[in-house]
């Protein structure tokens, strides 16, 4: 009775500690979903820029919207209403639908048009130009378009507002119907730029939800119109959701299977719940350790970490299977502890290599896994035996187990088999098709084909910028960048004419350099002479004499205006657009130009040479792949060191070269075999495969350790087999299901671990057991 009360008390205390830990984790940690925090620190300025631009480049923050289904009039109206709603929404920095609206130039900004327009660069605004313009306006007023132009004329007889609107509309814009963009398929089109980075799924999710609710708020139930969203951010959200949905669905099935398996193996519901405590403690401790050390945890760390922590499920299973009559759970665990400790210690020491890698994501992974394994291990050793019920079923008595054991014992163990397998693996690796590595992480979470086709169609219709290329323009300050941008602009026009690219958007398209603005200002007519000039220019034309007073006032004002700097321009309706194109980097500034429809990236080399590198093309895909490759190199280094540490730990623990060899040989061979099979099947390897291989190797270490152990009697050998079988089947339950997933990243992990578990188990039986038998 007192023992029972003590057990209950300890259990409650344990649970209470877990609740506290969970509360600490939930309040103390922020989960980041930004891919960049899992990347290695940038080495060069371009890499640093790349890190910022992955997901933040103008192209990748763009969402393309199409409103289809319904009358054109209604679609155009919806497009206008959606534009107004979204412009008021802080999630978006730019919303355009092709509509020309005069608000683009606020009245207070109107005088600046004479500094921004390039209309009078070739020929200044003199009497001849003005006379020609005024004559054209008389003709315009006699044309069908008269009523559209009339409101602009008194202030803007040369129609500079229209010239600027044209200059600022995307370089290749879609058809305008009823004042807004339409696709050839009769959908109203909009371009939206989010403030959030393109590959930040959480932030993009919010923006997309805001979009959808905005659309819902302007449509009525009898509208047939549908909103279609496309773009990198949308795909990030979509792919994340489908990956999560599929892994949750598979997870539920495997959890049910796992519960059934444990019930079958131990015939106790209480045991089932208790067996989950060590791994739950480990996971919570891991998160808490990261909260304590980093304050923030990356989503990938969490996913990888939980995968690696799967090893810890072995600890309680070993304890449960090895309980025997006449021995308390505490005594049973003492018998196993030295082996478990070897396994835990070697894994933890190996993961120290990750900690030394210097990559935040990997350091977090190391902290999570080491603290998780330690807590799961020690709670299995010191807490779990004290809360387990006294009543249990000896696993050695499991029906049929004895026969399996005898069959396994009787298997032939030819000495040539391991070298033959090694040779076979080497041959398979040799013959495997290229490439060895998968550097394009996006390929692991692919976007459905029909969505990609839609994306391509909308991107072409909207002339939206390429996600892959960015034009970098360097200068010592913002002004320098704008000057360089102006200088290179005609050269890029030449490239467009040559068909190298379809279009480009440079910062100077929005804001000319201060130098250019001052030149334009100086060329504007003198306010004292302008009235006379206007009078001469309008001689013979019917315009009322005082009609152009607002024009005279604007020109006079423009002469005295302070030239616009990016900081001043930032307050204008287009400020956000320019702001995204200019950034300070240490002691210099960078301008980011977007490229539309790149056909020949090589042709830019000339431009780079001419400008001594001040203007260059950044290939985001190429650069991010090289970054992934560099990252993998670091992981491989960490792995290399981890393997050495693991081998050393095992040797030190055994103090016996022969025994250590029997544990390490099957593990190594199995890992090589998994690699060989994956590669032979044509799978290029990714980081996810490496993590999965590590988990499999961790499990394999356990199988080999326990099979290698000399056992006092046949019953204990059967218990070892029981424990190992439960571990193998439970691992297969989880990972073989993942291997069936349609999503490559889940399949990569599932297949690798399943293959690994299979190979490790078979080779441990063949090689580790053999070693024991021979030395016995």
């Amino acid at each position, binding site marked *: 009775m007192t023992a029972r009360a003590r057990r209950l008390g300890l259990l409650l205390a344990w649970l209470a500690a877990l609740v506290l830990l969970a509360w600490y984790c939930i309040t103390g940690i922020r989960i980041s979903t930004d891919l960049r925090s899992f990347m290695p620190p940038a080495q060069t300025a371009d890499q640093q820029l790349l890190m910022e631009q992955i997901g933040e480049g103008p192209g990748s923050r763009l969402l393309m919207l199409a409103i289809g289904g319904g009358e054109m009039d209604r679609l155009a109206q919806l497009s206008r209403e959606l534009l107004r709603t979204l412009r008021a929404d802080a999630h978006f920095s730019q919303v355009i639908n092709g509509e020309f609206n005069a608000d683009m130039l606020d009245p207070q900004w109107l005088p600046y048009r004479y500094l921004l327009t390039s209309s009078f660069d070739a020929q200044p605004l003199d009497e001849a130009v003005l006379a020609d313009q005024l004559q054209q306006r008389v003709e315009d007023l006699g044309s*069908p378009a008269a009523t559209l132009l009339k409101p602009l004329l*008194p202030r803007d007889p040369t129609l500079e507002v229209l010239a600027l609107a044209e200059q600022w509309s995307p370089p290749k814009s879609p058809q305008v119907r009823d004042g807004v963009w339409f696709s050839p398929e009769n959908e109203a089109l909009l371009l939206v730029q989010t403030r959030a980075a393109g590959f930040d799924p959480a932030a993009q999710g919010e923006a997309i939800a805001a979009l959808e609710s905005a659309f819902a708020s302007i449509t009525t139930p009898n509208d047939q119109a549908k909103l279609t969203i496309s773009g990198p951010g949308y795909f990030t959200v979509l792919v994340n959701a489908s990956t999560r949905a599929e892994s949750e669905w598979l997870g539920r099935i495997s959890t049910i299977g796992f519960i059934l398996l444990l019930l079958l193996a131990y015939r106790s519901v209480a045991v089932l719940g208790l067996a989950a405590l060590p791994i739950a403690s480990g996971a919570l401790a891991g998160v808490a350790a990261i909260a304590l050390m980093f304050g923030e945890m990356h989503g990938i760390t969490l996913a990888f970490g939980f995968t690696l922590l799967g090893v810890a499920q072995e600890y309680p299973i070993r304890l449960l299977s090895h309980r025997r009559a006449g021995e308390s759970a505490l005594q049973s665990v003492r018998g196993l502890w030295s082996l478990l400790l070897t396994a835990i210690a070697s894994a933890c020491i190996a993961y120290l290599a990750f900690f030394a890698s210097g990559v935040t994501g990997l350091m977090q992974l190391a902290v999570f896994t080491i603290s998780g394994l330690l807590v799961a291990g020690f709670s299995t050793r010191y807490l779990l035996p004290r809360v387990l019920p006294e009543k249990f079923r000896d696993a050695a008595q499991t029906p049929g187990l004895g026969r399996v054991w005898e069959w396994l014992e009787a298997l032939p163990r030819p000495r040539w088999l391991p070298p033959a397998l090694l040779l076979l693996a080497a041959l398979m690796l040799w013959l495997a098709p290229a490439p060895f590595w998968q550097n394009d992480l996006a390929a692991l979470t692919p976007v459905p084909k029909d969505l990609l086709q839609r994306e391509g169609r909308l991107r072409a219709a909207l002339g939206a910028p390429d996600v892959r290329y960015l034009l970098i323009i360097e200068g010592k300050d913002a002004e320098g960048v704008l000057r360089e941008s102006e200088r290179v602009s005609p050269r890029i026009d030449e490239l467009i004419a040559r068909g190298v690219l379809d279009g480009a958007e440079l910062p100077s398209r929005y804001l000319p350099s201060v130098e250019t603005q001052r030149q334009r200002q100086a060329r504007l007519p003198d306010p004292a002479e302008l009235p006379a000039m206007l009078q001469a220019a309008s001689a013979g034309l*019917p315009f009322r004499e005082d009609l152009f007073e607002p024009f005279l006032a604007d020109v006079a004002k423009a002469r005295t205006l302070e030239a616009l700097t990016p900081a001043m321009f930032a307050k204008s309706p287009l400020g956000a657009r320019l702001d995204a194109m200019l950034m300070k980097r240490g002691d210099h500034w960078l301008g980011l130009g977007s490229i539309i429809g790149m056909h020949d990236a090589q042709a830019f080399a000339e431009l780079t040479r001419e400008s001594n590198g001040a203007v260059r093309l950044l290939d985001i895909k190429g650069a991010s792949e090289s970054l992934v490759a560099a990252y993998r190199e670091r992981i491989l280094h960490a792995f290399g060191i981890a393997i050495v540490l693991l081998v050393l730990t095992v040797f030190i623990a055994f103090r016996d070269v022969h025994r250590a060899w029997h544990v390490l040989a099957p593990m190594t061979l199995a890992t090589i075999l998994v690699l060989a099979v994956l590669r032979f099947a044509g799978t290029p390897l990714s980081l996810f495969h490496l993590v999965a291989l590590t988990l499999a190797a961790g499990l394999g270490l356990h199988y080999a350790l326990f099979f290698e152990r000399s056992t006092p009697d046949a019953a204990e050998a059967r218990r070892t087999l029981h424990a190992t079988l439960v571990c193998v089947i439970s691992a297969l339950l989880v990972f073989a299901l993942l291997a069936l997933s349609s999503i490559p990243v889940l399949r990569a992990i599932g297949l690798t671990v399943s293959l690994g578990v299979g190979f490790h188990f078979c080779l441990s039986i063949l090689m580790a057991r053999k070693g024991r038998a021979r030395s016995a």
Partner: protein
Amino acid sequence: MWLLLACLPGMCLASPAEFDARAVVSGLKREVPARTPYVEVRFSQMFSRPMVTRGELEYLGAGRLGKRVDEPYQETTTIADGEVTVQRGSRKPRRIELERVPELDGFLRGFSALLGGDVAALEEHFHIAGSADANHWRLEFAPRDARLARRIKAIAVDGQASAARCFSIIEADGDASIMLVEQQAAQPLPQPLTRIRLERSCQQGSASR
């Protein structure tokens, strides 16, 4: 049916019940190609004096119109296949697709329907009202499209029997363009040239005496 429309409040132009605006519109139908010289007088708040242009109008069948300005400048506007082409002097021609500017499209379709005597097409775009006396009738077409109505208040046609004298475009801001066609184009313009005098001459069929 149209009579009901014509007599909606504010639209009724003291029309005697026997006046049949439809018949008048049908009577305006011309053999294509139909050409007429014109004199256009624009009265605008922007102008200190009326702006007079002369040239030729051309009607080539449904949706196909041409307007050539000869004086005081040269310009040719062609409307065909849903596209407006404006050619000025030796400048590069400018093209506007009518689909892009639906209000303009409606206006020109209506205008073309008027010249073609196509009552049904006309009613699709405009409310029709009319009035008549012994030797003069006046038709007024108010746009149905709200966007067009914000710019154009009405198109009016004055004429006698089956001949139109004047087409007037009355803009929403009060500006107006009055175009004298067929025989009326050959009449001398009233002097001094004011809107009231010109409108009177459209009613009376000759320069106001």
